[in-house]
């Protein structure tokens, strides 16, 4: 479901195909509902070792994140700090992960690559950037930790199931047309980098004189 709340575009889980396909690279959104954390080890288990996710993620959000959590299963867990980790580490797994799990929305940090963009286009998913290093802002969007799976992987790598309220801003970086916001940025940076390296090359000579 997609709503406009106080000027914010808010998507609520379960996301429909139409909710996700209406998003375009560069859009800024917020989400309500169920988010599941999963990073390197979870992707390795699901795509490399052929294990099934112990929790349904279809129509929900995956967050590349390893939170700081206190408490225990008995006393209840509290979210202290949470923020996105480098999504590019999951690039080699993400096509297969999206295909296998049906996840619709992935939250992370920085760019992902061509294979993820292919999966987003083929299976109707998006990748979004949550500005990172803002772990207390994000933790306060977590209303409740509803469960945890695969805690044997350690606190950062486990599958934390979280219910969130207006988590964001999420900047759509790859949309269902496979458009990748970072591709354009990277092209610009590459051109400017070569210009700057020429300038550096000239000026280093005079510095060393």
């Amino acid at each position, binding site marked *: 479901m997609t709503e406009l709340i106080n000027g914010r575009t808010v998507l609520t889980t379960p996301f429909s195909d139409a909710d996700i396909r209406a998003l375009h690279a560069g859009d800024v959104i917020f989400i309500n509902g169920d988010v599941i954390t999963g990073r390197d080890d979870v992707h390795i288990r699901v795509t490399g070792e052929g294990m099934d996710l112990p929790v349904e993620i279809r129509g929900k959000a995956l967050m590349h994140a390893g939170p700081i959590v206190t408490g225990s299963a008995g006393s209840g867990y509290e979210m202290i700090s949470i923020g996105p980790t480098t999504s590019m580490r999951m690039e080699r797994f993400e096509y297969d992960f999206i295909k296998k799990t049906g996840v619709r929305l992935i939250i992370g940090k*920085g760019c992902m690559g061509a294979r993820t963009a292919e999966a987003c286009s083929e299976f109707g998913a998006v990748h979004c950037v949550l500005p990172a*290093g803002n772990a207390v*802002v994000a933790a306060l969007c977590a209303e409740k930790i509803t469960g945890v799976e695969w805690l044997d992987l*350690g606190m950062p790598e486990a599958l934390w199931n979280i219910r969130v309220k207006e988590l964001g*801003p999420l900047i759509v970086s790859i949309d269902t047309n496979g458009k990748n916001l970072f591709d354009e940025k990277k092209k610009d940076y590459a051109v400017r980098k070569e210009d700057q*390296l020429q300038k550096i090359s000239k000026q280093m000579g005079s510095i060393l004189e």
Partner: protein
Amino acid sequence: MTTEEKKEKLTDIMASFIGHTAIHLPDDVVSKLEALRAAEDDPAALSIYDMMFKNMRLAADLGRPSCQDTGLVQFRIECGSRFPLIHQLSEILHDAVMKATAETPLRPNAVEIFDEYNTGSNTGTGAPALFWDIIPDSDSCGIYTYLAGGGCSLPGQAMVLMPGDGYEGAARIVLDRITSYGLNACPPLLVGVGIAGSIETAALHSKLALLRPVGSHNPNEKAAAMERLLEDSINAIGIGPQGLGGSSSVLGVNIEYSVRHTATIGVAVSFGCWTHRRGHIVFDSNLDCTTDTHHGFTCGR
């Protein structure tokens, strides 16, 4: 105080200081972020800066780590040869990391090689990392703390160039890295460049460069000129906060070096994310301490 009491006191102060640095950014980093925000005119970049300052405020108010990745804990130790606890310092810092992990809390990040399990305490084989320097005839001890996050450790690179590659070769490594992996490492980044004769000396200098204050310059005028040149050049690329574009790219560029071999130029680059959690604390022989990085930290609580 007995030696045991002194050990306990130093462990408590260090655990509390490490926790403080996970919650509060150092004063120089906050000032630089304020300056970058003031100079920014891209609306999207400005809204990201606003979120960063909101996060800093909430982290301080709630006493929570500002970033969930509290890193691997590293120490640069400049210990006087007559500092009373020089022999116990390794054990003290190990215990302080365990204590800070439990009490702050820090996220457990240390994974044992080959056995592939998270130790849960941020300690383990060679952890915390200790980079020692012994100061002859001094009885005080300066300790730099650094929480090395995964995101900004990932772009680190070191290689040994040939003299014909020149200092331009070093510049290319830095710019190549920051415009690729650096985009994902939470810019605006602090860039630490090490130049020396081999790979490990260059790498260590690149980390020591990250421990220098933001805005400081190498005392060697030529090194300082190269710092300014690299800083201006990277800013001109306009990477912005989170790599999404903006009018600047970095918190600064710091260069540290030692001699090179006549046949080599070892170059390394280490990056610090915008939430650059570096601290510096100095103890005298009575274990009274001062810090020049965190105005809000009271020693000996």
